[in-house]
Each structure stands twice: as structure tokens, then as C-alpha cells.
């Protein structure tokens, strides 16, 4: 529990000097936050306004900007590739986020046992998460190739794997596998949350004869639910913005089966120079992220457990 700051009571005689202090304090506050404030206005708010205006125009950066009203937005919802990109992004997010969370939760649970050599395993499990996404993407072009590592291993156990990156039905699963390999960063957060739970709770539960599974479900999970929630939100936002993997592994192929929102936005802006159209796309993405975040936030009241509420 954080301690409450005790406010000093001021006598009526030094009200004037107090007002001066408030002014000085305010000035210092703005001096210190100025790097962020300037960046916020110049690199966030300003560009957002610009982007919003741009989304109602037709502009290729060379000729004059032309105001076309809602046309970009109307065209977006007639654009089959864009609709497919939204669908693919959703499917990818729906698969990769929950699976990653479950897998990292399982890993974190395993790694939370205090056994010899745990430091080694912890490092081993975290290692893939530090590999830069360029390197892991290049690596996975080989692993997921028709006769790459994955299919060789599957071959040993008698399964004939698809050409992961070349078949429409398989390509998104390939991306999920890549996401699973880098699950370590989520795992570390969950692990430190699990480790910060005191033993007393478990000891009390054990006295009452609770099983390990029961304890995991009714002690561990509720106590780390804020961290699960944090990872769920960042996972959703992150997966909706997937870019590098798609750019490097498939470039949206085969036949747009792995086209996602941000790579398609990038293509429109920087290959076709359809700046207005791409800006409209960015706003649709923003709206999607906002709505999904709010839904998760709303649902969190039902399943995220904050200890303060009980006390």
C-alpha cells in the first residue's frame, strides 16, 4: 500500500508566498516535461490532424492534394484486399494472442518451481524473444519452407506438412508458430508475477487440502490476472500491427492470403503513393484498436482481480 502524502496546512499569513510557489512550481513542471510536450504536439497531435485531413484527399505527394470527401473510406470497404487484410489480421490475432498467453503461462508455471538449474532453463526459454525480428523472420523462411526443418521433423513422425508459406490455408499458422517462438517476453512478465506471490497463501490452501491444480486456478491465476490483462492488451495491439514478419516472410502472399492491415497500408503509401487512401486505412486501424481495447477493458472488470478491492 502506498502511503498517503500528508499535506501541510498553511497559515493565512503566507498565502501570498504560497501563490508564488505554485507559479514557480508550474513553470518548472513545464520546463521538465517540455521534451515530451513539444514532441507530443509536433510529432503526434499535429500529424494526427494532418493525417485526418489527408484521409479525405487524393494525394500522391507529387501533384496537388485533392479533396474527395468520404471517397477513401467508401473505397476501403469495397477494396477486397483491404477486407481480406482485416480478416487475416483478426484471424492471426485471434490465434496468436490466446495461444501465446496460454503457452507463456504454462512456461512461467514450470519455471516458477525452485529447482536446481532453473536459471539455465529461464535463459533458454527467454533467448528466442531477444532475437531481432529480422533475424527470426529470415530463420523462419527456412524453417517453414516446404522441405525445411519443421516439415522434416513432422516427416519423422509420419505427418506430411504443408508448404507453410506457399499454401493459402497454412500461411497464417506459420505466422502463429513464429509468434510462439518469441513468446519469452510475455513469459518473463508472468513469471515475475507468479514469483512475487507469497508462500503463505499456498500454505494456507494446502492445510485445507487443496490440490496443485486447484491452487493454480484459485490462487495463482487471480493474483496474476492484472499481468495477464496487461499482456492481453499489449498482445492484441501488437498483433494488429504486425508488419515485419509479413514483409519478410511472404509479402502478403500467396494470393493475399497473408496480407495484413499494416503491410497493406505500407504498400499503398510507399509503393503506390496513395497517401490519402493509406491515411484512411490508418484511421480504420485506429478505430479497430480502440474498440477492441475498450471491449477488453470492459471485460476486465469481470475477471481481473485487484487485491485492493478486497481489503
Amino acid at each position: 500500500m502506498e502511503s498517503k502524502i500528508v499535506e501541510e496546512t498553511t497559515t493565512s499569513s503566507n498565502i501570498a508566498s504560497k501563490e508564488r510557489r505554485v507559479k514557480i512550481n508550474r513553470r518548472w513542471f513545464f520546463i521538465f516535461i517540455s521534451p515530451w510536450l513539444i514532441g507530443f504536439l509536433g510529432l503526434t497531435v499535429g500529424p494526427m490532424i494532418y493525417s485526418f485531413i489527408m484521409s479525405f484527399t487524393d494525394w500522391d505527394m507529387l501533384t496537388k492534394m485533392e479533396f474527395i470527401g468520404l471517397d477513401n473510406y467508401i473505397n476501403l470497404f469495397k477494396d477486397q484486399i483491404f477486407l481480406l487484410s482485416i480478416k487475416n489480421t483478426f484471424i492471426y490475432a485471434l490465434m496468436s494472442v490466446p495461444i501465446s498467453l496460454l503457452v507463456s503461462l504454462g512456461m512461467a508455471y514450470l519455471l516458477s518451481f525452485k529447482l536446481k538449474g532453473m536459471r539455465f532453463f529461464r535463459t533458454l526459454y527467454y533467448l528466442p524473444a531477444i532475437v531481432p525480428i529480422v533475424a527470426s523472420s529470415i530463420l523462419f523462411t527456412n524453417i517453414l519452407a516446404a522441405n525445411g526443418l519443421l516439415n522434416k521433423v513432422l516427416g519423422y513422425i509420419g505427418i506430411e506438412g504443408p508448404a507453410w508459406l506457399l499454401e493459402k490455408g497454412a500461411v497464417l499458422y506459420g505466422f502463429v508458430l513464429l509468434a510462439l517462438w518469441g513468446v519469452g517476453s510475455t513469459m518473463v512478465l508472468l513469471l515475475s508475477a507468479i514469483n512475487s506471490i507469497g508462500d503463505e497463501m499456498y500454505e494456507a490452501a494446502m492445510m485445507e487440502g487443496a490440490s496443485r491444480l486447484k491452487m493454480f486456478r484459485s490462487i495463482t491465476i487471480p493474483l496474476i490476472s492484472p499481468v495477464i490483462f496487461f499482456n492481453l492488451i499489449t498482445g492484441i495491439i501488437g498483433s494488429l500491427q504486425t508488419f515485419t514478419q509479413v514483409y519478410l516472410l511472404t509479402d502478403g502472399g500467396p494470393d493475399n492470403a497473408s496480407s495484413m492491415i499494416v503491410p497493406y497500408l505500407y504498400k499503398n503509401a510507399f509503393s503506390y503513393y496513395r497517401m490519402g487512401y493509406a491515411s484512411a486505412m490508418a484511421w480504420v486501424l485506429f478505430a479497430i484498436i480502440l474498440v477492441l481495447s475498450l471491449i477488453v477493458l470492459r471485460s476486465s472488470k469481470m475477471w481481473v482481480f485487484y487485491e485492493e478491492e478486497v481489503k
Partner: protein
Amino acid sequence: MLDKHLNLPKKIVVYIVLCFFGFILFAPFLYMISISLASPETNIIQNFTFFPKEFYWKNFTELFSNVFGGSRPIGLWFLNTMFVVLLSIIGQIFSSSLVAYGFAQMQYKHKNKYFLLLLATMMLPAQITLIPVFVIFRNLGLYNTLWPLIIPQFFASAYNVFFTRQFMTAIPGSLYEAAEMDGLNNFGIYRKIVLPLIMPALAAIAIFTFNHAWGDVMGPLIYISDSSKFTLALGAANLSASTNPTGTLNTSLVMCLSLLLSIPQILLYFFGQKYLFQLKLGVGSSGTK
């Protein structure tokens, strides 16, 4: 957690499961090493083996032939990357800690509103500002330079400010009062009292900034067009098979480069572990304590 209650058979089960998944997670690394050490004769995908069969070190020497010229000036890419990385780290440490200090210690009625605004920017997808910011830098004549990758780093990032501020609020107030008595002004307190005490947070900022600047593909992809100005990440991306189907470089060499690209981050993890672990604990326990 409750180690004492694991009996021997259960311990063995846990170890077996740990080893099994550990091996699955490590297998791609082995494959990466194996491919990077394959000789040009075996260089077709179906020939790559899981464990390295050959040790063709020449791949690495070939990768480093002609590092400052030719079609893949890796030396230049490295220098470009280090330039971006170092200036980004300086920018983030300087700006994020200043802003964090403002939010942690300065008094202002509407401080919390500004802080919420800062946190809200974390939710904002970068793509919203991507195109206008690109247009701004292009109009400033900075297209095809490294500056668009560096300049934004001098305006603090919400995430860095957030955890640095948490570090600063943990500093006891009596320390500030003592410093004020000694006649230090706010900048003095920030430099002489606060900065030395939040070294772990600064180290974490440096590590996060390094990781981002070192591995970022989209930024350089948008701003850089000359291959002499590429960063390593963009260079590697450009050499990889799918973006470069004609295949000027064989798979082994691309894999060598990917391997080398991973090494600094792995080293940084080992050296920076203790700083990151402090932070992670901070995030992890914030909700459960």
C-alpha cells in the same frame, strides 16, 4: 514456489517437460548455426541438417569481404546502425528522464491530466502519424538520411517516462529537502541527486532503445533508399530471399548475417539482466501487491 512439496518423481517429470520444451525452443538456433556453416555445395534447403554437419567457416569471411563497398557494404551498415543506436540512446536517456522528473517531483494542479495524456499515447498506433511525419521529414530535406530515425528519440517515449517516474517516486522526499537546503535548484537536484539514484532505470532505457533501434525494419525501410545508408536490419531484410528473389546471396550467408545480428542483443541481455529484472519485477508486482 513451494519447492519443498515436490517429491522426487514429480521433480523428474518437471525436468523432463522442461528439457523437452527447452529443446524445441533451442532447435531453431541449432538450425540457424547449421545453415550458416553449410558449404555452398550443400546450399539447397532440403540438404540442411538439424545439427551442423559441416563447418564451412569461409561463409563468415566471405560475408566480411569488401565491407565498405560492393553490393552489400556491411561495414557501412554497421556504422550507420551504431550512429542511430548511440544517438537514440542519448536522446531517450536525456529526454525521458527529464520528463519523468517533471511528473515525479514537480507540483502542478493538472499534472495528472497531463500524465494520463502521456499514457494515452501508448495506445495510439504508430501508423496514424507515420505518413504525416514522413511528409514532414521529407519536406525538411531529411529523406534518405538517418535523422528521421534519430530526431524523434529526443522527445521522450511514454513507456520510458512511465517506469522512470516510478523509480523516481521511490526516492525518499527527505533527500530532496536536504538538497534544497544545500541551495541546489531543480536542475541541480535532477543531475546530482536523481540521476545517480536511477541508474538501473537509465540502463533499462538504454537497453530498450538499443533493442528497438538495432532491430527496427519499418523506419529505415521508409526513410532510406541508398544501400550505403542502410542499417544492418534493413540490409539483412533486403538480402533475405523473399524480398530479393533473384538471390544474389546464398542462404548460408544471409543466415550468418542473421546470427551476427542476434549476438549483440543476446550479450546485452546477459549484461543487462539485473537491470531489466528489477523493472520486470516492478511491472509484475504492481498489481499483485
